[in-house]
């Protein structure tokens, strides 16, 4: 197997199809064997799938787990004494949350790969950082949420950090003024969750009439569009609001999930989400889970080389999307690029994983 410690040395978007696909196939087969040898539940599922890893020609032939399984089972491939931390997904009240078990190696790998990907958009320097959220978010460590974990993960890329909103969700106007004066003429890194930015940061700016000059800012935001889509807010409206209220133009959405932390899919200057070299996107038809043609809508499968401590290297998400192209985005980045359409209805996904379990 590829030495995992060398993974972060790869360049995030340099490899075209042939090289990347061969690399992923070899490594994902190896990871499949790794988990089958260490996680009894995974071993059973692999056996039930009938796939012979030694005969796999393309990684798409390997079995994938519905992401929901991490809500129902404790799946891990390391002994308990090697566990370093457990991540949980954010769930609405009453919903079960995913539990993802990390050892030190997987956790470090996640941080390193995330820093490679983000570095492609922010540069190598750590920039002064504004967190577009409330300072209350990481105060209570016991209630550590996926949002708090996301903020901390991205805090590595910043320095001299401030929160745009105080503990009462009010805009910290004086704090922002002082910060921008201190860092006049510098590029600034902004990070936040899409819905929080829209609902609180933009709204507070509008209300207050304060118009900070963030034209040198680079915003990375994530967390999904569901809440905004429910309010019929489009990407264009979101970007327009940021431009009007604070002059921000460099705005990058990202797609990612706690079940595969580290390998996030960043939105490029052309508005396309890009798969980095350590992971890939496969679109599957909801009818038979076969690989959909380029451009066709289907369920998003994510494959990542980072999960070593839990068998989450190949997961079928509940998100729907389509591949827009591969290796030929005008931004120059190689690899597949895609878009997310939304989330599939729960009942359909349930059906899909039940089918899988019955095999």
């Amino acid at each position, binding site marked *: 197997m590829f030495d995992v410690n060398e993974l972060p040395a790869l360049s995030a978007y340099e490899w075209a199809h042939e090289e990347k696909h061969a690399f992923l196939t070899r490594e994902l087969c190896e990871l499949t064997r790794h988990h089958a040898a260490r996680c009894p539940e995974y071993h059973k599922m692999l056996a039930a799938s009938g796939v012979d890893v030694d005969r796999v020609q393309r990684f798409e032939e390997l079995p994938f787990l519905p992401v929901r399984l991490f809500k129902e089972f404790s799946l891990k491939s390391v002994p308990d004494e090697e566990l370093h931390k457990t991540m949980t997904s954010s769930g609405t009240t009453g919903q079960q949350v995913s539990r993802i078990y990390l050892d030190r190696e997987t*956790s470090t790998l996640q*941080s*390193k790969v995330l820093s490679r990907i983000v570095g492609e958009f922010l540069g190598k320097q*750590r920039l002064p950082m504004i967190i577009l959220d409330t300072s209350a978010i990481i105060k209570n*460590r016991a209630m550590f949420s996926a949002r708090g974990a996301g903020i*901390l993960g991205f805090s*590595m*890329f910043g320095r001299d950090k401030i929160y745009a909103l105080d503990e009462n969700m009010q805009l910290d106007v004086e704090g922002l003024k002082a910060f921008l004066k201190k860092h006049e003429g510098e590029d600034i890194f902004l990070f936040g969750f899409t819905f929080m930015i829209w609902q609180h940061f933009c709204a507070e700016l509008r209300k207050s009439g304060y118009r900070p000059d963030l034209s040198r800012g680079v915003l990375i935001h994530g967390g999904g569009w569901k809440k905004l889509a429910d309010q019929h807010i489009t990407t264009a409206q979101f970007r327009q609001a940021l431009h009007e209220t604070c002059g921000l133009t460099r705005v990058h959405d990202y797609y990612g999930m706690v079940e595969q932390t580290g390998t996030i899919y960043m939105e490029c200057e052309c508005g396309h989400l890009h798969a980095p070299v350590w992971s890939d996107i496969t679109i599957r038809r909801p009818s038979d889970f076969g690989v959909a043609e380029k451009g066709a809508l289907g369920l998003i499968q994510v494959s990542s080389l980072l999960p070593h401590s839990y068998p989450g290297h190949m997961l079928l998400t509940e998100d729907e999307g389509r591949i827009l192209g591969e290796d030929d985005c005008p931004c120059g980045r190689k690899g597949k690029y895609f878009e997310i359409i939304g989330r599939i209805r729960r009942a359909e996904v349930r059906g899909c994983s039940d089918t899988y379990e019955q095999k």
Partner: protein
Amino acid sequence: MTNLEKYINAFVESLEVAAEDVPALKYGESDQWDSVGHMSLIAALEDAFDIMVDMDDIIDLSSFEKGKEILAKYDVEI
């Protein structure tokens, strides 16, 4: 203050631990040195020695001893 004192002090203040416990500390092995504590520690070290730590070094700084090696790269001898 010597560099060693400053170094220990950064741990004490950012992680809220006793000075005598500092040399045995490892990231992730105590409640205080979790991911929140880690970012405060980095900020405290940067302030104490007036340096800017690279991302890779932030990730690699996993123990009291490892931190000394990393600071040496920034011409800070502990």
